[in-house]
């Protein structure tokens, strides 16, 4: 989560759910927490019952809005305008927490004079390369710091970006954690705070009202409530989920909230923070220990085709002279040792030269393109259902039909396994079973009750679940599948002398197994993740013990210590009523170092005293000479508040005693991100890729850096804003989940007691829209985009508020839950078939929370008529363009 990673240093929620009870105000935005995280929502209700304000900002009036003390309806995709407006309100009225901002953020840092803001370039930052369609970020740097590079080499993938971008940036030239040029008084015209002021100056309440479609009064009420509940005595928290991330400006949405929370001094303090609410049992874990193309465990970067010919400059570029990323090499070497054991040596650069290299984008949507172009032969799907769950499902299904072989592992036969005989394309005749060459293996998987293992939840907490029963018949865990697959492949290649087989032969792959089916021991894998001393076999207690000489192995440095003392720390289940505080540190294990609320040094003032009694959490105990409190201090335990690092200090030692954000090179939270983001150091309001409106701030309508598939026939786009043909798709559509179902439905449409609760695909529309196009409550509607058309039952409700925009235009929004597909106990059309594959440039996430559509009464055409219907509308729209 680079939104949080670049701002604070770690790509995870800054707080934990239970701490929400201490908030004086909670802003839920880009999330429908009551519906999608109902049990976590109990902590919001606790706060509400204690008198906290609960504000829900959302295009829809949801079950969360019903519980909130205030709901503000905004147009889907206008979040940065709203949040930027809050930042402007704070800055213009000098309401920011000055002492916090001065010491704990990079507000005083002076930025290079070459930097040009979007305000001065009509929506573009300096460094924009129209040909490449990307930014050269050199001009974004801190003044007086050379952006170091390898042999002057420039180019894509050079700078650490995206997931692992919380480090390295602004590395060179930092002396004891201080950038070369600063103005502690925050008055220098090029200091971050002043740049920020200018950047957001035009985000006035009136502009917010015009852009978001809410009222200036409602907006101001939110600003006032937030400010009134922040400061020394009070704290406010933000909760968000994919309502913020699934946009072409996804990362910058989060960045804007990060800026607001820094200005209000709400990070690292009880009742404050930014709570990222994630949607899958271990989705945080699958970024920490990534099944992602661009990183290795612990957010270590995958080597890139276009950079770092040698190990030295790879390490050089990724090592920050200051902060915890200063120990990059020891994390890396320990991982390589875990992967390749004695085969990885200092002499062979720990096999660096053998590692596979990535391009700037090898994400799932890139792979789909490759499939459609016939470049992918084999695909393994384990616990995901792209045919329903991914944007533009049709493109995915067509892609699967072009594979040579496909492996699908799940509990039930999901749509992605059945695409070759049951799918909209089979129904329409675009695909014919007999003509699909794909060889399909469906392997039944084991459920969570049938295997040992750990999930990492939304608050970075690793929780162990024990096997309750044996999986039946052919059902197996993924652990079993990949372990035995690897075993077989290693056997086949055992005698190969091929260069390409060196790594697989070198891979350490000995894990003890048990039971008749030879299930690998999950705890043995966790021990490797946690790390050990190779010679002594001693279990490591944490990443400070990692070494760069190959004498320690560690599969994921940020998880180091989760098996400290040979005890599975993640399996600890000490009841909360037996623990000293609500923080409950003896329940499971949180990364990093079992800290529950991170950056918590910021809960004390620069001198180390609590900002207030009411918000006491972690503080400096002068007598004991150490940091103490209700949580594990997220700071070197004995480093005094007044510590000033000597000039030659390195890594963590170079972080000053009053700099709480220890992962950052300068130990401070970043209002301004000089390095690490593709689309700008500051968030800027852009319209969604598809929207009915022009950008009221800039000529640049949408995010210039967004990824598009202009040349891909399977991913056509609707005309937008004032383009001719836009009126064919005049409505804003947003997709979402319901409490009763889970994502693509594979885990709920197959469960009788859940299927009956929400048995049919439906769309939510306002009575005004119903009248406008003649929709009948309880009847059917056909919703269409350039990609496809689906049908849904019509739920007419005042909860879908129409918004009145600047020019008096009313914008109607269509709500679509995306749970349904062709299979299961209850079936229906898939909302994602309507969505396009334009992506956020930082994390390549799809924009399914805001795009455009048309809607008309009645059921959709059947069979071959469906693609014809879609094509005719598309041509109608585009013919007007030409």
């Amino acid at each position, binding site marked *: 989560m680079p939104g949080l990673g670049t701002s604070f240093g770690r790509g995870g929620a800054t707080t934990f759910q239970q701490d929400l009870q201490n908030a004086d105000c909670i802003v839920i935005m880009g999330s429908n927490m009551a519906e999608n995280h109902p049990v976590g929502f109990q902590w919001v209700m606790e706060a509400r019952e204690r008198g906290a304000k609960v504000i829900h900002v959302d295009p829809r009036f949801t079950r969360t809005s019903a519980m909130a003390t205030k709901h503000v309806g905004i147009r889907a995709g206008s979040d940065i305008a709203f949040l930027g407006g809050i930042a402007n309100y704070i800055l213009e009225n000098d309401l920011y927490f000055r002492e916090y901002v001065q010491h704990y953020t990079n507000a005083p840092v002076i930025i290079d004079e070459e930097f040009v803001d979007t305000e001065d370039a009509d929506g573009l930052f300096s460094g924009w390369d129209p040909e490449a369609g990307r930014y050269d970020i050199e001009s974004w740097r801190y003044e007086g710091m050379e952006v170091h590079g390898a042999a002057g080499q420039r180019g894509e993938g050079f700078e650490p970006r995206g997931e692992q971008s919380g480090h390295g940036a602004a590395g060179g030239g930092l002396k004891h954690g201080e950038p070369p040029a600063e103005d502690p008084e925050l008055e220098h015209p090029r200091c971050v705070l002043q740049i920020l002021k200018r950047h957001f100056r035009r985000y006035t309440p009136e502009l917010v009202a015009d852009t978001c479609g809410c009222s200036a009064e409602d907006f101001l009420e939110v600003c006032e409530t937030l400010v009134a509940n922040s400061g020394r005595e009070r704290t406010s928290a933000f909760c968000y989920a994919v309502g913020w991330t699934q946009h072409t400006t996804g990362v910058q949405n989060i960045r804007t909230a990060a800026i607001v929370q820094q200005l209000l001094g709400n990070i690292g303090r009880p009742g404050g923070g930014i709570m990222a609410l994630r949607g899958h049992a271990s989705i945080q874990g699958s970024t920490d220990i*990534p*099944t992602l193309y661009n990183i290795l465990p612990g957010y270590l970067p995958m080597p890139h*085709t276009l950079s770092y010919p040698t190990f030295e400059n790879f390490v050089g570029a990724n090592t920050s002279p200051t902060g915890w990323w200063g120990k990059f090499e020891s994390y890396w070497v320990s991982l390589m040792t875990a992967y390749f054991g004695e085969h990885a040596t200092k002499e062979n650069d720990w096999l660096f030269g053998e590692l596979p290299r990535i391009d700037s984008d090898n994400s799932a949507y890139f792979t789909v393109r490759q499939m459609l172009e016939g470049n992918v032969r084999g695909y*393994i799907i384990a616990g995901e259902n792209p045919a329903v769950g991914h944007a533009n499902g049709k493109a995915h299904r067509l892609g699967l039909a072009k594979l040579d072989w496909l492996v699908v592992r799940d*509990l039930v036969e999901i749509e992605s396994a059945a695409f070759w005989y049951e799918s909209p394309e089979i129904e329409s005749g675009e695909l014919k079973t007999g003509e699909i060459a794909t060889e399909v293996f469906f392997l039944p998987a084991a459920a969570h009750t049938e295997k040992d293992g750990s999930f990492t939840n939304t608050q970075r907490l690793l929780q162990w679940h024990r096997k309750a029963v044996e999986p*039946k018949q052919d059902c197996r865990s*993924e652990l079993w599948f990949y372990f035995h697959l690897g075993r077989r492949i290693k056997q086949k290649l055992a005698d190969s002398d091929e260069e390409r087989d060196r790594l697989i032969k070198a891979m350490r792959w000995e894990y003890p197994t048990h039971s008749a089916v030879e299930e690998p021991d999950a705890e043995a894998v966790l021990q490797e993740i946690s790390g050990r001393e190779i010679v002594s076999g001693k279990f490591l207690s944490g990443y400070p013990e990692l070494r760069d000489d190959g004498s320690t192995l560690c599969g994921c440095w940020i*998880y180091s210590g989760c098996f400290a003392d040979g005890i599975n720390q993640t399996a600890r289940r000490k009841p909360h009523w037996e623990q000293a505080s609500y923080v409950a540190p003896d329940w499971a294990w949180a990364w990093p170092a079992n800290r529950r609320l991170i950056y918590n040094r910021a809960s004390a003032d620069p001198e180390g005293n609590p900002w207030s009694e009411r918000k006491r959490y972690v503080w400096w105990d002068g007598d004991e000479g150490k940091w103490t409190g209700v949580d594990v201090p997220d700071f070197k335990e004995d480093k005094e508040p007044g510590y000033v690092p000597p000039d030659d200090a390195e890594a963590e030692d170079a972080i000053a005693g009053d700099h709480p954000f220890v992962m950052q090179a300068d130990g401070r939270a970043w209002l301004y991100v000089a390095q690490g983001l593709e689309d700008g150091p500051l968030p800027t309001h852009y319209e969604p890729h598809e929207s009915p409106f022009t950008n009221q701030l800039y000529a640049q309508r949408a995010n210039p850096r967004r990824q598009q598939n202009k040349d891909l026939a399977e991913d056509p786009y609707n005309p937008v804003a004032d383009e001719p043909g836009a009126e064919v798709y005049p409505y804003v559509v947003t997709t979402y989940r319901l409490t009763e179902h889970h994502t693509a439905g594979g885990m709920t449409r197959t469960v009788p007691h859940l299927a009956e609760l929400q048995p049919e695909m439906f769309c939510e529309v306002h009575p005004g829209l119903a009248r406008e196009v003649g929709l009948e409550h309880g009847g059917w509607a056909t919703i269409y985009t350039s990609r496809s058309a689906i049908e849904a039952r019509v739920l007419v409700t005042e909860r879908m508020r129409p918004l009145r925009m600047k020019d008096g235009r009313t914008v109607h929004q269509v709500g679509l839950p995306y749970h349904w597909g062709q299979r299961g106990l209850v079936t229906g059309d898939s909302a994602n078939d309507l969505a396009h594959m334009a992506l956020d440039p930082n994390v390549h996430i799809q924009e399914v929370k805001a795009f455009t559509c048309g809607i008309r009464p009645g059921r959709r055409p059947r069979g071959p008529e469906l693609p014809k219907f879609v094509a005719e509308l598309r041509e109608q729209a585009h013919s007007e363009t030409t």
Partner: protein
Amino acid sequence: MALSKLLDSWPTLRQLREGDPLGVGRAVQSPRSKTLTARIDEADHVVGSVCPYCAVGCGQLVYVKDGDVAHIEGDPASPISRGRLCPKGQASRSYVQSPLREYKVKYRRPYGTEWEELSLDDAMQMIAERIVATRAETWRRQTPGGAPANRTMAIGNLGGATLDNEENYLIKKLMTALGVVQVENQARI
């Protein structure tokens, strides 16, 4: 004898004897009601687990009877969930015992029109062969531009957000060693 027993158990007499003239309480309590017990108290063993749905991470208790899951409910000890569960988590037993759940490998040959049976062992063997062959045929030591590549772009792996950390660890480790870089999941935020 048997008759007198029958009479004793006849609630009408118990109404008089047990001071329940209206016959609405103890006198009419049935044998089953008298001896009723809670299913969870009959379990062979209980296992601490975690809900498989969203990322809140609610604690679960899995009650096992005769090798099958008899019931799943919230674990009161969890400081996050305090024993509570949402409808999905509460339906976990029905999820792991879904009527649609598959227990056997299914195989569809190229251009095939239906599923065929296949042993798990054969399936594993065939998949391993596909990977080795595809890899050998599509391996790139370098990019067209001459930069190091060490990879195959013809294989992808999708999924992970619903899996265990240990499983994701093995996936990334194996795929990296195989030179498969297109490893992805939903966690794109």
